[in-house]
């Protein structure tokens, strides 16, 4: 092997993988928090702050709608009538998390439900 080639081989091995870059202390943890806030935090955070009273009104409204539908169906087919709470529980049990979120989003635009405040 020629001297120049040997020098070239050695030079990269000698330097290795060292980098001249440094990072401020704690920056990786800070970055992780920023990323989580911009992703999971964005999705799980409510679009607008809601009081407990509003949430109750929202779900009560949903329950009333489902109960009404269940009652109408029972009248048509002649089966025993489920209570509003039973019908609501049955409906919730069959929904995925995404469908639940969609339901909340849908009813959150209902001005009649939103008007019921604590």
């Amino acid at each position, binding site marked *: 092997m020629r001297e120049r080639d040997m020098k070239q081989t050695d030079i990269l091995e000698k330097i290795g993988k060292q*980098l001249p870059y440094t990072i401020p202390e704690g920056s990786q943890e800070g970055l992780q928090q920023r990323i989580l806030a911009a992703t999971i935090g964005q999705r799980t955070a409510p679009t607008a702050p809601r009081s407990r009273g509003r949430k109750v009104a929202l779900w009560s409204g949903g329950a009333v709608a489902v109960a009404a539908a269940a009652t109408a169906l029972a009248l048509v087919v002649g089966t025993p009538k489920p209570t509003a709470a039973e019908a609501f529980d049955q409906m919730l049990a069959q929904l995925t998390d995404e469908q639940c979120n969609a339901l909340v989003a849908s009813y959150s635009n209902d001005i009649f439900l939103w008007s019921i405040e604590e």
Partner: protein
Amino acid sequence: MPHTEKEILDTLRSDTDAAFAMLLERFQEPIYWHVRRLVVSHHDTEDVVQEAFVRVYRGLPRFGQHSSLSTWVYRIATNEALRWLKRRKVRDFLFVDAGQQATAQEPYIDYGNLEAIALQRAIAALPPKQRLVFNLCYYDELDYEQVAAIVGCKPSAAKANYHLAKKSVKEFLTANLNL
């Protein structure tokens, strides 16, 4: 102990957010350094990495396993870094003279480490694809298949690019360093 790809993918079937948190823990640091070697500035790197992981998060529910998770995450981060480099004027923090160092805008570079600076200058002087391939092979130690999937070329082309890049880097260092 970082989570394995299998653990992350198993979690993904039932809980996207939990899978993303595991993925972030597994890939944040290697992706930070991968982007940092391309973008150089620490603060710019943070912005690029954040944007890349936001894209990963959005795409995660649709991740089809056509490639490995690491290849997919590296590809998104690489594309984001390249997009950033195209949009912004490249700040040549690596090429400031000794007299300019005091006023250099990037505080997180050790300008006293002459060998490491010279190596980064040698890499920065490479054509874009060779630069990418060199970083992924040399620092991240990815195999040619993975590198090819990230860069968007054939494994044989990745191999050829790496050898060419290595030769150029060595020539640059030989000419600029007395080791």
